[in-house]
């Protein structure tokens, strides 16, 4: 692989990594903080893409961003209501909402499974026009995505250190404590999932506009990819304050995309992506458990060895 090819790989990984890191940051809030594995992520990502594309196609690229985030908030609100007010298991509520969103997403795209944004103004084409005369003129995707990521990381850092943010973190950290305190876990769960899904929606919106089309499968297995990135991120920078950890999430998303892009360059077929992300997630989730078990396993092995030694004598 020559240098320019390597650079191209890095460039793609950076763009995709930055856009997807918004979903990773959403899971950072719902999964790492609130301790809810939000399986509606795939559908919500597509919802953001669909809503954003429809609004952009109608000629309002700037408006597409708040619209997609608002759509995400609605989706998160429904997931949260199902698990807090209707007594549905949190995993199931995510799956149910995800299934329902498939129809909603097609409905948003007026019955089609794809919206083409070719020759339509998007936030990226706007940025391209804006940067036309500057040295960054070819980096418009990165600039928009980086801007969104920086704002999101700053927002999360501020938000998670407010009293509301602390209450959300306590809800995930020690539900027992929250139940016997003046924090209403229903309220914190709803707020947490709404905010998280707003970023998932934003992520989808930017993804669709960057590739100039939204299609119904754009968010497919996003939750696994995001989880893989999240786990890589927390391995890299899992300790420390919220800001450090949030930056770690972005880094995780980038590393994941980089590994994936390199694998593609080395002629790994594109359909392998899902298997690769599954393996990464499974390994990352299993590692802490295996680490715990290791002393027992190693003692067993040495015990067997010693026993074999005794028999020989």
């Amino acid at each position, binding site marked *: 692989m020559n240098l320019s090819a390597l650079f191209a790989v890095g460039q793609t990984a950076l763009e995709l990594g930055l856009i997807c890191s918004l979903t990773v940051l959403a899971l950072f809030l719902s999964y790492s903080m609130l301790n809810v594995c939000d399986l509606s992520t795939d559908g919500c990502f597509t919802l953001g893409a669909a809503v954003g594309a429809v609004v952009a196609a109608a000629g309002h690229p700037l408006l597409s961003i708040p619209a997609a985030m608002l759509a995400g908030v609605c989706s998160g609100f429904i997931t949260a209501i199902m698990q807090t007010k209707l007594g549905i298991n949190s995993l199931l509520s995510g799956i149910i909402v995800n299934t329902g969103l498939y129809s909603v997403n097609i409905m948003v795209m007026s019955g089609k499974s794809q919206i083409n944004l070719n020759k339509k103004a998007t936030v990226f084409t706007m940025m391209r026009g804006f940067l036309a005369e500057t040295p960054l003129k070819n980096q418009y995707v990165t600039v928009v995505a980086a801007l969104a990521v920086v704002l999101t990381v700053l927002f999360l850092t501020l938000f998670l250190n407010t009293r509301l943010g602390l209450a959300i973190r306590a809800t995930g950290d020690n539900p027992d*404590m929250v*139940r016997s305190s003046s924090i209403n876990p229903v309220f914190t769960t709803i707020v947490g999932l709404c905010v998280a899904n707003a970023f998932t929606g934003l992520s989808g919106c930017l993804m669709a506009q960057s590739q100039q089309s939204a299609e119904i499968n754009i968010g497919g297995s996003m939750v696994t990819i995001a989880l893989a990135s999240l786990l890589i991120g927390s391995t890299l920078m899992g300790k420390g304050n919220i800001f450090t950890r949030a930056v770690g999430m972005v880094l995780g998303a980038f590393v994941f995309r980089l590994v994936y892009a390199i694998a593609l360059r080395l002629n790994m077929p594109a359909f392998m992506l899902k298997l690769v992300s599954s393996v990464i997630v499974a390994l990352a989730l299993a590692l802490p458990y295996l680490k715990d078990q290791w002393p027992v396993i190693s003692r067993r092995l040495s015990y067997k060895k010693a026993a074999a030694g005794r028999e020989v004598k």
Partner: protein
Amino acid sequence: MLNISRISKTFNHGTVNEKRAITDLSLHLAPGDFVTIIGSNGAGKSTLFNAICGDFLTDSGSIILNGEDITFMPAFKRSKHIGRLFQDPMRGSAPGMTIEENLTLAAASGGWLSHVTKADKKRFRERLALLGMGLEERMKQPVGLLSGGQRQALTLMMATFVPPWLLLLDEHTAALDPATAERVLEITRDIVNKDKITTLMVTHNMQQALELGNRTLMMDAGGIVLDVKGEERAKMTVADLLSQFRDRAGKNLDNDRMLLS
């Protein structure tokens, strides 16, 4: 301060597992009362606390706290004015969050979107220093790193940071080693005396039940069988307490954790 009149609670009503946990119980606490509660296993001590905190709604009767009828108030709203400690020191604080963050939640000053201020931090340090455990130097450490005793002391500090109308202590020193338990109890006494907090404390230590506070209740079968205070209580010994219990409940006090000395 607390006015409980004729509350009852039956669990699993109408099934073979039916359990009358509290039967027609009334209790009146004056402001500043520090009441110790003893009783056999399943006497309804924790159930009484759960009823006061709103973990479930009572079947009948009413609960009035500081003039406010809280009979049907949801638990998280009551918690604003009721501090509660459990036997398990892990229950009262969030292990993944720092001491400072835990205290920020407990201090409950400012609105939902407010941040912790310099003045808050200074206040936290001053209050933590009173515990004499060196926690004020560990503000940025996650609570999960503290020992059980330290965590229980911190929980106590959190529960009383804004003095509650009512403090409920459910054998909060039972899971600690004797020396630590003694220290936590000392802190409890200091805090309760300083802010004159109305307190109910369940204990399994009979001596403690007579020494601490100004009033002692004995519970059995979901009701209060003995209520002593003042002169009568001052003269009472553990042996008196046991014989009184036998007379009133018609059986020996039976608690597998009971400490008689």
